[in-house]
């Protein structure tokens, strides 16, 4: 525990939760509320029929659903039994995401973009979700699920041009970097206001049910943003109208500098919040590609069959700073990311594939190189459309467009006033 806590005045009984580790501490996760990992006990959690009564998911909401053991095997009833090709594709998508992140982080550091956010360590939550859903199932990301977009084959160049806010940007520089939008890829427009997408996802799901389609919507929030009212609305409305929605809480332990306990309070798990609304609820090992895949597939099946929404807490860890504006060494122990007891999602899937003889270090290294080159090539092309430090090439007239469907006269007057 860090030293400055000693200055606390003890007159007060106000309880303020504190994280396990602060800068200077040797990371220790032994007090993390989590089942015993070594015994693999959690691998025996049952996989009930997706139409099970929601309250019977209690042990899944307070436990931890896992498939991959820490030594690379699969175990337990949640194993989705994917074939090697699918797993290799998952590995590739995660590695691609990681490679794009690395590149764009560098680009921002070079001053060519104003902002970027990595998803390092959390790639499985997005990639396995995209692969377990239909491509037409609408996803409502927060801002750390670029893996969804990349898994669905969104052109790298388009993604990068958005980050560069240049003339190649399909959003014409209107949105800040990483606030992608692609109806084509069934990827909802990201807004930076936390939580708001959660009730949109439920509205979309209600639309699916209203129209009698078998569509499912799939929303993501960070654990920190569960404190917003919108999370509550999403749980409430999906419970009331049995909306075919999947409500993912990515618990990556940190919300900028606040640890998950600030949002969790005395809750055992975030999944348990779902139970409070009579929704099926699972807590899963978010660094376990197969567990994520299995949980999403289960929830999608439940939703499509009319069973309503499922809340899924992805228990994972944010290995990097919150964004390019953040320096995590200011508020947490430097070694925390490596001490995270659930490992790294890329490493774990890779090890499993190697263990079952479907992958090897050479192929892995080659793939990494291939992806880096692929990403670099796309980046070069994207950069040719301009950057922050050169010219973005965006026509100022576009500023007045798309505020409304048709431009009202006051905006025409203002455009004139600007002399363009």
């Amino acid at each position: 525990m860090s030293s400055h806590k000693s200055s606390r005045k003890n007159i007060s009984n106000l309880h303020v939760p504190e994280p396990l580790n602060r800068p200077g501490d040797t990371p220790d996760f032994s007090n993390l509320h989590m089942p015993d990992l070594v015994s693999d006990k959690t691998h025996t959690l049952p996989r009930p029929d997706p139409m099970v009564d929601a309250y019977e998911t209690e042990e899944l909401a307070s436990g931890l659903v896992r498939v991959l053991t820490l030594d690379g095997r699969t175990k337990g009833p949640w194993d989705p039994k994917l074939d090697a090709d699918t797993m290799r594709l998952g590995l590739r998508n995660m590695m691609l995401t990681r490679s794009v992140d690395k590149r764009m982080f560098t680009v921002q550091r070079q001053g060519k973009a104003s902002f970027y956010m990595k998803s390092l360590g959390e790639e499985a939550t997005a990639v396995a979700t995209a692969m377990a859903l239909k491509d037409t199932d609408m996803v409502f990301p927060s801002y750390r699920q670029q893996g969804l977009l990349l898994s669905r084959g969104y052109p790298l160049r388009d993604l990068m041009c958005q980050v560069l806010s240049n003339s190649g940007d399909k959003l014409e520089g209107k949105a800040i970097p990483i606030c992608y939008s692609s109806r084509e890829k069934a990827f909802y427009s990201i807004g930076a206001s936390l939580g708001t997408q959660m009730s949109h996802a439920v509205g979309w799901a209600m639309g699916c049910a209203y129209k009698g389609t078998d569509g499912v919507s799939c929303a993501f929030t960070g654990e920190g943003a569960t404190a917003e009212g919108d999370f509550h609305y999403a749980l409430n409305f999906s419970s009331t109208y049995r909306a075919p929605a999947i409500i993912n809480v990515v618990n990556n332990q940190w919300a900028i500098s606040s640890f998950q306990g600030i949002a969790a309070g005395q809750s055992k798990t975030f999944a348990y919040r779902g139970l409070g609304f009579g929704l099926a609820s699972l807590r899963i090992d978010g660094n376990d590609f197969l567990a994520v895949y299995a949980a999403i597939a289960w929830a999608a099946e439940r939703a499509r069959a009319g069973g309503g929404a499922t809340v899924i807490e992805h228990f994972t860890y944010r290995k990097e700073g919150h964004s390019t504006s953040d320096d995590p060494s200011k508020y947490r122990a430097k070694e925390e990311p490596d001490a995270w007891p659930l490992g790294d999602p890329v490493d774990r899937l890779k090890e499993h594939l190697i263990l079952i003889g479907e992958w090897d270090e050479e192929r892995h290294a080659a793939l990494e190189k291939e992806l880096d080159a692929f990403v670099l090539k796309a980046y070069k092309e994207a950069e040719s459309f301009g950057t922050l430090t050169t010219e973005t090439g965006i026509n100022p007239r576009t500023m007045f467009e798309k505020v409304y469907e048709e431009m009202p006269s006051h905006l025409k007057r203002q455009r004139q006033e600007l002399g363009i």
Partner: protein
Amino acid sequence: MPKNNNAKQMNMIQAINSALDIKMSQDPDVLVFGEDVGYFGGVFRCTAGLQEKHGLHRCFDAPISEGGIVGTAVGMGAFGLRPVVEIQFADYIYPAFDQICSEAARLRYRSNGDFTAPITIRSPMGGGIHGGTSHSQSPEALFTHIAGIKTIIPSNPYDAKGLLLKAIEDNDPVVFFEPKRLYNGPFDGDLNKPVDSWANHELGQVPEGHYTIDFEKARMHKEGSELTILCYGTMVWVAEAAVRETGVSADIVDLRSLMPLDLETIVASVKKTGHCMILHEATRTSGFGAELSALVQEHCFYHLEKPIVRVTGWDTPYPHALEWEYFPGLERVSKSIIQMMEG
């Protein structure tokens, strides 16, 4: 003005109900939800009968969660539906403020047209029913400050129906405020008179079928030559009574649509009369009257013979017992007209 032979006498509640009914009949993507709007038909009865006629899944009760109501509506709108939601009182729109301003208003822009929120948010506004601080507010100005939202306020049954049909068909999010004091009749601010009913008014003659009224098009309620009165909602009727009482020859411009605004009509009128008075029930400071005043002086500076006058609610919450002292009623408006024209 209604010239339709199929016109029927309707009060504003019936006119709104008719608009909803027609749109639900025409377009299976239109659905209606909100607090108490389903089986019961709304606390002001605007959605009466819609559930029975169109089905439980097309007109239903929502949890008491204005934020959730607007948030799910935005999602439905993005999906391709045209939800029409009711906020039970305009005073209770604030829990939905973030969803309206950060989401509904911004979705088209930030996604560059990839996603849109073609939703309509109906809400009864204004005082006059002894509703006090929390059942009388007129928060329209707030929405006019948010780029991406349209703000509509009808003053009579005919306009209410045509504007609501337009709002539902519009592909932008529309906040549609209904002056609740006008639901049953054109209240003119005279407390000593028996309450009037729409049955006696031309604007209570409403075509039974479909028609729309364009936004950005003010309605010239009365024409005159000496004074321009800019107003909307309940204040249109107060203006009419005050003009009658004072005998001034005035243009009464019923704005109907605050955003987008029919500046052309406003400017033409003020240039003609040289005098401008602005009425609204909302709190004065940063009310929509401020914007109107700013625009008028920007565009008609050299035609104005007197300072523009705002007659409005005071900068206080709406007091329960002193409702009529707060309300910018006939007496205050008439007095202001006389002061302006004779002063």
